[in-house]
């Protein structure tokens, strides 16, 4: 099986996708603030026409390469490429400042590869025994696994469980839109909009949440990064540094793997945890934070181990281990492969995908080792060009899935919603989690009752389901334990603790309108749900009632506890709410307006012309000075997009005037 898997992965088409995925992942990874979830989310929608194996190899390669690329910005410009590499900057940037940038990149490449490879081996070792149970997994078991995944919300929301739950419940409610999974013949909660009867595809929500909202942020920041540390020495020296510290590598691998393995959306924690653990045990602990190779090594190994460890629950249980895991899971569903134990039974495919993942890891390490110096020049790309290009790709991706123009509107709405939600410290990821898990939980709940002729005892009499429920209970309990453990940890890192404290106490007046909006939506769902038969409305009704109860609780708490404090905080917060129009920056309302204008143009002029116009206008408005260059760039980008669409066989919207 393994040989076949590797042979398949090495076949012509697949190796091409592997290289393309790695290249794209590297670019996205190196760009600051764009992480692997963004890179994968943007590409999922382009894989529809592809062979599932090639698609998964492509997406896994993006994930692998992003993880490496992220380190480049952390080390060279002290801006973490994504949350996963926050800790890499603590020692990496000081090293780069000292002129050891090459060595730091070398350490990053090798350390990530080692961490990831160890996790990869554990993935395949664990996958084998799990396949034994695969045939026994039916409705009740999937229901139990879905509930287990949903219980992760408390972790995903980073200590703000109630906010996370509210968002997750909203996601669950939104997942009820469209064909119901109970009878299969009702099209629920369309509110009279025909496109809604087809439901909200996960890809659209993911694109909006991770790509569009990122564009809004990018354009609001404006400019590009100016200060980049020079790379003077050879990255190959970093390799020696790694092999001189086997103990550090071992410790960090275990910590990173453990954090990743827990289905806990823990990418952001892995690097930091490994770093902090190493700081307690390393012989070089005094030099940590002052350009210590050991510190960087620990952070990088932990990150690498976690990046692959994350995929273990995703592929073996169908419980996403990280945001990217959740998106990969959505990709599996799109390609008609049941995620979870069943995935491992689908012939050579899983082996090919795992082989592709390993090849992607090695390829990325090689690129970073030998080309890290040149890669760093990508960070000069100004947001004025980057952001509109991403929008064009998003529009293309949103349309590609089902050839609906309405999907583009849905995507932009998700982008705006998650952007606003993030501003008041709510987690949009939880909403996505709810959206993915909603159908799994609802369908399998009713399936189980169908199997047992309506007896609820089935959830306890099926052994695997019962075990999963017990694990879920323990997991929720363990969360509280973990909370205390981490509180101890933070005591040794005052910076981190103050960060967390700040995160927890910050309240924003924007929360009230958001909650009111969500409450209105939930009430509308509840109201329109009355029309359906009891079985069909059971799940959405429960979800809405829970959501309304939580929103009510949160509102009361906000008004009682922090009402006073706001009276003083209000002017400042309001100023934050309305960003000043500074040259080269676009407030989010403008960006959304531009996107809507783009949508109209797509309808009138067709995709290609509209994209060129949009790129030009947005680039210039966002402060790109050289008009001639901008014209050439927009033509070039549009030509690339057109070629790309031809390559993956996408239909592009034709303008109304050409029809």
């Amino acid at each position, binding site marked *: 099986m393994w040989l076949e898997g590797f042979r398949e992965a090495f076949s012509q088409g697949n190796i091409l996708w592997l290289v393309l995925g790695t290249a794209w992942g590297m670019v996205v990874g190196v760009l600051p603030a764009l992480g692997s979830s963004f890179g994968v989310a943007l590409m999922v929608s382009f894989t*529809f*026409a592809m062979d599932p194996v090639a698609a998964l190899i492509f997406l896994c390669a993006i994930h692998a390469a992003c993880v490496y690329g992220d380190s480049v910005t952390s080390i060279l410009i002290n801006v973490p490429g994504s949350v996963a590499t926050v800790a890499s900057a603590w020692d990496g940037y000081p090293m780069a400042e000292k002129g050891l940038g090459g060595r730091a990149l070398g350490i990053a490449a090798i350390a990530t590869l080692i961490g990831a490879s160890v996790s990869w081996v554990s993935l395949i070792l664990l996958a084998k025994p799990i396949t034994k149970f695969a*045939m*026994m997994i*039916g*409705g009740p078991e999937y229901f139990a696994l879905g509930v287990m995944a949903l219980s992760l919300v408390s972790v995903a929301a980073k200590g703000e469980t109630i906010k996370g739950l509210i968002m997750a419940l909203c996601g669950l409610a939104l997942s009820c839109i*469209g*064909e119901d*999974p*109970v*009878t*299969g*013949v*009702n*099209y629920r909660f369309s509110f009279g909009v*025909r*496109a809604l*009867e*087809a*439901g909200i595809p996960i890809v659209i929500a993911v694109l909006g949440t991770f790509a569009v909202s990122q564009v809004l942020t990018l354009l609001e920041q404006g400019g590009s990064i100016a200060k980049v540390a020079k790379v003077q020495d050879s990255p190959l020296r970093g390799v020696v540094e790694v092999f001189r510290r086997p103990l550090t590598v071992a410790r960090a691998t275990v910590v990173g793997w453990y954090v990743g393995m827990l289905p806990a959306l823990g990418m952001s924690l892995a690097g930091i945890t490994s770093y902090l653990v190493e700081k307690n045990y390393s012989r070089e602990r005094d030099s940590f934070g002052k350009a210590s190779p050991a510190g960087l090594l620990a952070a990088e190994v932990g990150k690498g181990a976690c990046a692959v460890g994350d995929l273990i629950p995703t592929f073996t249980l169908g419980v996403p281990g990280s945001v990217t895991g959740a998106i990969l899971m959505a990709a599996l569903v799109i390609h*008609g492969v*049941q995620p979870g134990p069943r995935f491992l039974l689908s012939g050579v495919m899983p082996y090919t995908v795992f082989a592709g993942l390993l090849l992607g890891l090695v390829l990325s390490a090689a690129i970073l080792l030998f080309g890290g110096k040149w890669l760093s020049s990508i960070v000069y790309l100004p947001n004025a060009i980057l952001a509109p290009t991403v929008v064009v790709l998003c529009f293309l991706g949103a349309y590609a899935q*089902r*050839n*609906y123009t309405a999907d583009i509107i849905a995507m932009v709405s998700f982008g705006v919603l998650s952007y606003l939600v993030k501003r008041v410290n709510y987690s949009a990821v939880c909403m996505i989690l709810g959206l993915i898990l909603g159908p799994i939980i609802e*369908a399998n709940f*009713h*399936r189980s009752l*169908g*199997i047992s*002729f309506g007896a609820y005892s089935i959830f306890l009499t099926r052994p695997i389901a019962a075990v999963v429920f017990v694990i879920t209970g323990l997991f929720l309990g363990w969360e509280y334990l973990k909370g205390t453990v981490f509180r101890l940890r933070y005591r040794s890192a005052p910076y981190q603790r103050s960060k967390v404290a700040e995160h927890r106490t910050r309240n924003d007046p924007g929360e009230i309108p958001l909650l009111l909006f969500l409450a209105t939506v939930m009430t509308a769902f509840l109201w329109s749900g009355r029309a359906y*038969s009891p*079985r*069909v409305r059971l799940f959405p009704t429960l979800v809405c009632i829970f959501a309304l109860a939580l929103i009510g609780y949160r509102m009361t708490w906000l008004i009682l506890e922090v009402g006073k404090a706001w009276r003083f905080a209000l002017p400042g917060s309001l100023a934050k709410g309305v960003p*000043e*129009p*500074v*040259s080269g920056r676009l407030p989010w309302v403008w960006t959304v307006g531009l996107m809507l*204008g783009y949508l109209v*143009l797509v309808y*009138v*002029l067709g995709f290609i012309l509209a994209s060129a*116009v949009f790129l030009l*206008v947005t680039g*210039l*408005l966002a402060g790109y000075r050289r008009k001639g260059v901008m014209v050439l760039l927009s033509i070039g980008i549009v030509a690339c997009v057109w070629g790309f669409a031809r390559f993956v066989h996408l*239909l592009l919207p034709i303008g109304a*005037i*050409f*029809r």
Partner: protein
Amino acid sequence: MGFREVCSSVVTNRGDLSVRVLNPRGVTVARWEAKGVQILPCEERGISRMMMWSRRIRFASGFLSALIIVVLALGAVSCRGSYPAQQGEKLPEWPQQNITLIVPFNPGGGYDITARIVAPFLEKYLPKRANVVVKNVPGAGGKIGVMELFNSKPDGHTLGVISPVALAPMQLTGELGSKDIRDLVWFGQLDWAPPLVAAGAKSQFKDPVKMKGQDVRFACTSATVFPTLVVAEALGARPKVILYDGTGEAAMAVMRGDADVISLLWTSLIKQVEASEGKLVPLFVAASKRVQQLPQVPSAKELGFNVEESVTGATHMIAGPPGMSGDLVTVVAGVVEKATNDSEFKDQMEKAGYPAVPMAKEEAQQFTQQVLQTTEKYKHLLEAASK
């Protein structure tokens, strides 16, 4: 950028041959000298942020209005161009552009596969060279794509691969609004196949006669709910529908013993039966005759059950939007007939597991009528299915 407001305040210094451009506040923005143009940086110009924005807005609005003019002009030109053609000769000039074949389901399913097989054969017999492009418009059980077909221009450049058997229940439950599938032009059939009914090896219902009056768990996908209920009624069983996302999953549920019986298009179910190593037992073909390729499996009629095969069998047909002109219909129907009777087409369909059963236009139109009438008889099942 908006030079208009600064142009009004051009000041010439006669003495030293330099031209200055001032903004309304009187601050120098640019200065022309004998050497050339030197534009001062933004901060020195002293343009306020509000000014910057007002210029941008003006620029954007100017750009948009220019664009609108271009669009209107182009629109006018294209309208004028197409007018005489419509009034001209009698024989329709078809096709004038690429033909879109709407498939209201995701890539990879039966609709998509059959559409992609037939597309090159349609191209082969077109009177003029044009591409036939498959466009997947999935969602809401095929409804979104069908509505797109209903609302498309009846010029022969938009056709669809759809099924009256799947659409009749939708029409009768009001899902299609005021649309009537009899208004569509049904050009011909690509394939037709009856369902095969199979039971799990562990199930007590390996003899179909035993199902009478019993609670039987049927594994379904959302597309097979209605045909399954029709089969169950013919068997006299009390069906408990368990819904699955795909046919593979539904078959596996029966193998595991989570459901008792499955009724599915025989070409896809027979593969599951072969792979199941005896865990799936084929019972009968839900039709009046045996299937040629499955000589050992009896038909429903032989066992004494009367199954309406017009609403249980799966079909894929080529249809066009309502309102196509008579001449155009004749031309298109001719192309479809030639394409679906091509022996190479039949070979490819057979290989893909969708045995071709060509049907001429008149027959297809009649068949649709019949499907609608038969489905109406089972309206009570439709109501039960939605609960």
